[in-house]
């Protein structure tokens, strides 16, 4: 490369002697090198841009499809609680009141809406109060009944109610349902929408924020307007509690033993390989294992968050063990030497010096493991946490663990399977909530890492 025959002093290249170059001009090699570097950076930027593009598309479509689930249409109407229908004996005896089923309440709502329509002088082709039924949710009579059972003294009076509109009406308000799309729908007519338009003008129909979606329970196939994710959120919460309480201590103890105390031999090598393998096992395998072991063998209750939590613990353990071992490994061995050197026992060295330094890594790993478990659906399919309609808030802690429930991702999966397009919207809404949880957990993990890492 350099001219060997020229007696140049060591260190000064041939190029200096022959054609003196300016520092301002790039020579061919530098040009090539810089071009390669620029190209590489361009590839990187392109890759990141593509990634960001898809992320944005994903987020936008999730938000656009899911946001409508957070609002719901209500019809505000004064309902006359007819004593003749609700309490024939007239003595307000709770047992008698209870005998009137929701079928007894539905006509009251029909009448109330019909009366409101006529009072306001709205034009409509409907002549019977019963025709109003299509606009209200099938859950509305139950809402009325619950109110009456709780306040028997209101019977005979007229009370303002905010009644849940049917999912078709809600869909119409949100633009999901149009007059054309209901042309062959026997549940509702385009004429109902004409009426709704007028009721919106009068302020009797409005869309408001839907707390029930966040706090409520799942509903049957035909009442998407009533369904909420709250109960399955509780299911997820109890599962996460099980996962945290089992996988953190077991995982950390196992990692400390393996990393700091266990002799390095064939057997521990085998364990190590198997833990790594476990982390890669498809989650559905854990599900079938859980089904066989916890339900069929140990006879734990089906669909219970306890079982779900146990299965997810199996899944999370390898993640926690691997991250804990990695953070224990990252603690410089000189710290252990220092502790042993002043006469600390191995256990003191680990617990006084190594573990505090590894803690942020352990916590991060745990939170990420939990986040993974929170979003896991497949294993829950097999232990019956999907397809179960979680309509009841568990009463008490024990019931929270043992009574059948669903979980957020399982609920989302369930909704996405249902035929009514209103459920599709709920599924997206559920995904938004799930993502918010996951994001919160990851942010906590990042904050913890920032706060504790390199504190010294």
């Amino acid at each position: 490369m350099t001219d060997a025959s020229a007696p140049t002093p060591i260190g000064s290249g041939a190029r200096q002697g022959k054609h003196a170059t300016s520092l301002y001009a790039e020579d061919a090699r530098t040009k090539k090198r810089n071009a390669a570097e620029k190209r590489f950076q361009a590839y990187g930027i392109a890759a990141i841009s593509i990634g960001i593009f898809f992320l944005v598309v994903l987020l936008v479509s999730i938000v656009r499809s899911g946001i409508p689930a957070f609002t719901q249409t209500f019809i505000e109407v004064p309902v006359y609680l007819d004593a003749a229908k609700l309490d024939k004996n007239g003595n307000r005896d709770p047992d008698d009141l209870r005998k009137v089923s929701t079928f007894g309440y539905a006509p009251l709502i029909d009448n109330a809406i019909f009366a409101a329509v006529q009072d306001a002088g709205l034009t409509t082709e409907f002549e019977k109060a019963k025709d109003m039924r299509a606009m209200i949710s099938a859950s509305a009579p139950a809402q009325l009944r619950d109110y009456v059972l709780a306040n028997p003294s209101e019977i005979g009076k007229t009370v303002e109610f905010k009644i849940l509109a049917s999912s078709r009406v809600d869909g119409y308000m949100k633009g999901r349902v149009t007059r054309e799309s209901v042309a062959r729908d026997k549940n509702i007519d385009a004429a109902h929408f004409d009426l709704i338009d007028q009721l919106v003008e009068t302020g009797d129909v409005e869309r408001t924020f839907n707390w029930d979606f966040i706090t409520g329970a799942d509903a049957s196939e035909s009442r998407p307007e009533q369904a909420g994710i709250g109960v399955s959120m509780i299911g997820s919460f109890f599962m996460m509690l099980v996962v945290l309480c089992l996988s953190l201590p077991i995982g950390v103890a196992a990692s400390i033993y393996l990393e700091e105390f266990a002799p390095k031999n064939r057997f521990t090598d085998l364990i190590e390989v198997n833990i790594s393998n476990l982390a890669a096992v498809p989650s559905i395998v854990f599900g079938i294992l859980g089904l066989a072991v916890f339900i069929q063998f140990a006879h734990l209750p089906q669909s219970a968050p306890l079982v779900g939590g146990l299965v997810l613990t199996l899944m999370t353990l390898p993640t926690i063990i691997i991250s804990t071992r990695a953070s224990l490994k990252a603690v410089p061995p000189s710290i252990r030497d220092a502790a042993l050197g002043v006469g600390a026992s191995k256990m003191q060295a680990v617990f006084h010096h190594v573990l505090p330094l590894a803690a942020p890594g352990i916590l991060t790993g745990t939170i990420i493991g939990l986040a993974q478990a929170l979003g896991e659906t497949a294993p829950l399919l097999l232990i019956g946490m999907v397809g179960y309609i979680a309509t009841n808030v568990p009463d008490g802690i024990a019931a929270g663990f043992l009574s059948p429930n669903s979980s957020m991702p399982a609920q989302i999966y369930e909704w996405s399977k249902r035929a009514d397009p209103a459920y599709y919207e709920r599924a997206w809404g559920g995904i938004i909530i799930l993502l918010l949880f996951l994001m919160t957990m990851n942010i906590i993990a990042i904050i913890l890492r920032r706060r504790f890492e390199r504190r010294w």
Partner: protein
Amino acid sequence: MYDTPNASADVAAKATKISAKNVQVYYGDTHAIKDVDVEIQDKMVTAFIGPSGCGKSTFLRCLNRMNDTIDVCRVEGDINLDGENIYDPKVDPVQLRAKVGMVFQKPNPFPKSIYDNIAYGPRIHGLAKNKAELDEIVEKSLRRGAIWEEVKDRLHAPGTGLSGGQQQRLCIARAVATEPEVLLMDEPCSALDPIATAQVEELIDELRENYSVVIVTHSMQQAARVSQKTAFFHLGNLVEFGETGQIFTNPEDPRTESYITGRIG
């Protein structure tokens, strides 16, 4: 006060603190220490010298069983501390290390405050009955580590925030805080400037009054300055062991001579 401690007159009188016989150390298949016999006397400084990789650190770490922490390491032979075999199955290495303290080649303070660095050993060994006593131990140890003046105003600052040389003196202070009987020092001055080195050497000289000190060093001058006895290692063998003055002025083995005159290394 700082006399040249090579006066050979006081060598013979001292009692044997550690006696090693026939020591072999293997790292897996590598034979790192071959047939080493050494007698380390009480209240005296013994220096280990030799070219890099000859096994000085390895042998030093045998003396407080730090090699136990290395899985592949195997130690054979007898090492006695005050006549008791430290590799006896009945011996708890933790108890041994409380008696035989160690300062490592690289400064390794705990990522805790300066105070806690020093107080840790006394705390786990229950050397202080109360906070006042602990404070006293910390101050005394930091003074002996020749670092008190520099850190007395920031005892609660992290020990890892000190400079390399300060960290090493902190580690020395930490080692003396537990009142060991023997102090093993593996190149304690390799990270220090000449002033700090002089301070540490002075410290070693003081420590000699109460302890038996073993120091590994690459500096012939240092070995000559601080030690009364010197052991020269070469390729895992103990080539020559004797009074420092004699080793440096009149070595018996040609390998020792070529090393100290700078021909192997």
